[in-house]
């Protein structure tokens, strides 16, 4: 997403789905995982006549509400989409003027799609060609159409290609930048967008600033600390600019000494885990080994993290009870970039403390408390969390947070009832503003931007073109938007570069005073503390980040255009030669990651002949640490199971209700109950991801301290998910795995 048009975020918002005429859902199950989002989808269907198209290996609760259901084999979405694009091309259903004005490199995609005839797509995906044609016809005919995805797309070795091709499909049809269209990513849980905005990533600083020296210097200034002091915190200067271990790969930094060379010649020695269900990552059995081996493990969580009972270490592990969301205060950001204030309801109970207090205490004992709070600029007289919120607003200019002050966010939350949920527009005291000030919100009088890349609104009211992020030209071809393609009211009627002190006078048609010139020397829209660049840009109807083309070609990536690649553990071994995995990557987030060598290691499907389909249950959240501790939710979904088609059960001699062993391609194995059902095909087993607390047939209940064990315990399905990580982002492959089933 970010590599296609500038920002990696949902482009429209949840209520906006109501404006769609067709909604295509890939790798997402909002009926189970986002029931409220499902309300908007069903409303689009009923009131707006939208066709609902679901592409999924499993006939989910969402699929049960669809007009057209396409069952595909896991990990074949790219082939399916190329099949769609080919049909769109052949039938001339594409949006010619949109592509001409706002897209770079569509020819390459049109070339690549030629291979994916309906017959080829049927062979790869298993979806009958008639259904592909029916789905494409319905989707292309709709104006606008909205595309939804979730972890069913991102958690793959080719997850980054899935999301890129989805974006390209929307570009092909001209569905971007308008109400009812867009790419609507449903985030996996509360505040995912907020935490990535804050830089909870291995390869960025907050606000998606990179790790280059310039970014660090910028943040040193924002945080009111000395750059050299910051630099000295790193073992060697080059470590400062290196990507870290990612959430999915840290275990290899503990276990595999060969990775030490990527990590300043040292293995990882300690882990501090704050509110993360780390057992939702693949290969939990390896995670156990890593946790056992570390020198120190700390969990900060309102509940006992299930990883703490999975490890068998008996020293140097600490569980710090954290306050829950109702016992503390601050902002949360939802999937559609809107912020909301979360007021404190009660003080933390028992020994629990709010996360920030725990972190402040750490900082004091490590001796950097003064620097830690310096960014708020008030010494230790700061007001939490208001001053921190304002610091964020001040520092995160790349995503236009300048307008999201604590005061404005609180005003929106308090006047929640005054906003329309289809348009997010407010009335009365919040007239003309959009709920939660969806970023970019360029200035303290900007209303927020509910639909990204929308040309039909002036920039000052939430409009913008695509971001100039990849330069202004490539191989002699301009990457800027064509003439005539600019937001309403723009002084420049075509594309332009990002705003800098150098070009503001020419682009905005102004003359800077000498004082302003001095203030802005060497500045651009991403580091201008004075706010002058944004002010003048908005007055001239210009987006501070420029106005460019979306690109289909990402020249920095392994796959310049998205390519179908068979999963590392493919159910169709015969296709792996034709659609091979990418080359092994010796330093992927500091880890040596196997791709082609893992795929070709053996004919996996021979020994592990069953495909898994993984997903969540509506009752549970993530690892279920919190929800399995609720007696009513545990009553409704209290037992781990694997769902198979009765025909597969018959073939394997496993009856409905029998216990069965599931063996993964790694060393893990789990013992679970067999449930007969019809939601997956005859070669697959559906495994819910929400259980933990039972380990290869053995209950870990006794390892929970005191009375902290949840009501429902079950085998963790990630013990048997296969090795594999996204070739760009390192997101774990939880979706394509092979297993062997045996009656227990």
């Amino acid at each position, binding site marked *: 997403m970010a590599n296609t048009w500038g920002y990696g975020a949902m482009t429209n918002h949840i*209520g906006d789905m*109501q*404006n769609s005429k067709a909604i295509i859902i890939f790798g997402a199950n909002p*009926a*189970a995982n986002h*029931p*409220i989002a*499902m*309300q*908007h989808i*069903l*409303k689009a269907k*009923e*009131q*707006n*006549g939208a066709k609902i198209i679901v592409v999924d290996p499993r*006939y989910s*609760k*969402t*699929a*049960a*509400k669809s007009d057209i*259901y396409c*069952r595909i084999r896991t990990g074949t979405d790219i082939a399916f989409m190329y099949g769609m694009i080919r049909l769109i091309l052949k039938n001339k259903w594409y949006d010619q003027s949109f592509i001409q004005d706002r897209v770079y490199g569509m020819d390459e995609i049109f070339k690549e799609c030629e291979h994916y005839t309906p017959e080829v797509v049927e062979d790869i995906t298993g979806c009958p060609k008639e259904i592909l044609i029916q789905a494409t016809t319905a989707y292309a005919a709709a104006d606008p159409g909205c595309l939804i995805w979730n972890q069913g797309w991102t958690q793959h070795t080719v997850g980054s290609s899935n999301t890129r091709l989805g974006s390209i499909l929307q570009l092909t049809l001209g569905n971007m930048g308008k109400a009812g269209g867009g790419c609507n990513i449903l985030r996996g849980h509360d505040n995912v967008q907020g935490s990535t905005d804050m830089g909870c990533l291995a390869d960025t600083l907050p606000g998606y600033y990179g790790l280059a020296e310039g970014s660090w210097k910028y943040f040193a200034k924002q945080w009111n600390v000395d750059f050299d002091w910051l630099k000295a915190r790193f073992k060697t200067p080059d470590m400062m600019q290196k990507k870290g271990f990612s959430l999915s790969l840290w275990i290899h930094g503990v276990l595999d000494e060969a990775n030490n060379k990527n990590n300043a010649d040292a293995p990882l020695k300690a882990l501090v885990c704050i509110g993360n269900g780390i057992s939702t990552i693949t290969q939990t059995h390896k995670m156990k080994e890593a946790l056992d081996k570390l020198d120190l493990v700390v969990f900060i969580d309102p509940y006992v993290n299930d990883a703490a009972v999975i490890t068998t270490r008996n020293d140097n592990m600490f569980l710090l009870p954290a306050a829950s969301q109702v016992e503390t205060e601050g902002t949360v950001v939802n999937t559609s970039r809107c912020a909301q204030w979360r007021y404190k309801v009660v003080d933390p109970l028992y020994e629990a403390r709010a996360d920030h207090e725990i972190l402040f205490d750490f900082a004091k004992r490590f001796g950097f408390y003064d620097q830690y709070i310096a960014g708020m600029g008030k010494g230790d007289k700061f007001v939490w969390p208001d001053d921190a919120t304002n610091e964020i607003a001040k520092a995160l200019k790349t995503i236009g947070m300048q307008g999201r002050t604590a005061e404005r966010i609180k005003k929106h939350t308090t006047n929640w009832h005054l906003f*329309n*949920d*289809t348009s997010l527009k407010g009335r009365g005291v919040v007239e003309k503003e959009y709920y939660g000030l969806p970023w970019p919100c360029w200035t303290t009088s900007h209303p927020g931007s509910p639909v990204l890349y929308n040309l039909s609104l002036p920039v000052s009211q939430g409009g913008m073109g695509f971001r100039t992020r990849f330069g202004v030209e490539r191989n002699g071809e301009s990457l800027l938007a064509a003439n005539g393609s600019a937001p309403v009211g723009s002084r420049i009627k075509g594309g332009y570069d990002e705003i800098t002190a150098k070009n503001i006078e020419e682009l905005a048609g102004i003359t800077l005073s000498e004082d302003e010139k001095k203030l802005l020397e060497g500045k651009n829209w991403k580091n201008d503390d004075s706010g002058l660049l944004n002010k003048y840009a908005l007055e001239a109807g210009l987006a501070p980040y420029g106005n460019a083309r979306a690109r289909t070609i990402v020249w920095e990536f392994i796959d310049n255009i998205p390519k179908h690649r068979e999963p590392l553990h493919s159910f169709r071994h015969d296709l792996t030669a034709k659609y091979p995995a990418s080359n092994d990557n010796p330093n992927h987030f500091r880890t040596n990651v196997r791709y082609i060598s893992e795929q070709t290691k053996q004919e996996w499907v021979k020994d592990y002949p069953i495909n898994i389909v993984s997903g969540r249950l*509506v*009752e549970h959240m993530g690892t279920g640490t919190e929800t399995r501790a609720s*007696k*009513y*939710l545990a*009553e*409704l979904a209290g037992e781990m199971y694997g769902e198979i088609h009765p025909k597969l059960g018959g073939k394997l001699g496993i009856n409905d209700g029998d216990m069965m062993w599931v063996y993964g391609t790694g060393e893990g194995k789990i013992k679970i109950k067999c449930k007969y*059902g*019809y*939601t*997956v095909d005859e070669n697959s087993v559906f495994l819910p991801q929400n259980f933990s607390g039972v380990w290869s047939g053995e209950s870990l209940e006794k390892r929970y301290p005191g009375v902290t064990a949840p009501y429902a315990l079950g085998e963790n399905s990630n013990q048997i998910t296969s090795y594999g990580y996204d070739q760009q982002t390192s997101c774990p492959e939880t979706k394509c795995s092979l297993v062997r089933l045996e009656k227990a």
Partner: protein
Amino acid sequence: MSKVDFSRMKFYCDETLCIDCNGCVVACKEAHEVPVGVNRRKVVTINEGIVGKEVSVSMACMHCTDAPCQQVCPVDCFYIRTDGIVLHDKNKCIGCGYCLFACPFGAPQFPKDGAFGTKGKMDKCTMCAGGPEETNSEKERHLYGQNRIAEGKVPMCASMCSTKALLVGDAHEVALIKTYRATKKGQGIVTDSYGW
């Protein structure tokens, strides 16, 4: 002359909107602190996983006009309010289970945790209208749960329904909502979501 009130309180669940999220079930249990094993409300899914045929619907006591439970009860513990809500008196109930045999919907529930697993007093959906004890008294809350109707509030299940599939209220009003939805089908967005 005083106006005669002909209202009859009814549930309606739209199976084209119900997504089997069980929000209604959990909302009910949390609100009334119903013991585990007793389900005043359930979501039933038929033809699960069969393409094009799967349907889910949320079910509880249907508050029948001519309630079979009332007719078969040997101790006459049932009573029907003038607004049609079917309630019962737990002090009279002997836990015989006749009502369960008579009910076409499987609504009556019995605790299963007593000595020898014997049936205790029957429990069922009250449409959040409590029971015969003094309204909003501690005793009423303990035996029957909240009395939201007396407070002018919507029953918990319908107010929590994520897709607004489950409706409750005077049968006439519910029918009007359904008619409104049917006539506005495919005509564009006409309502705010949370009142949909």
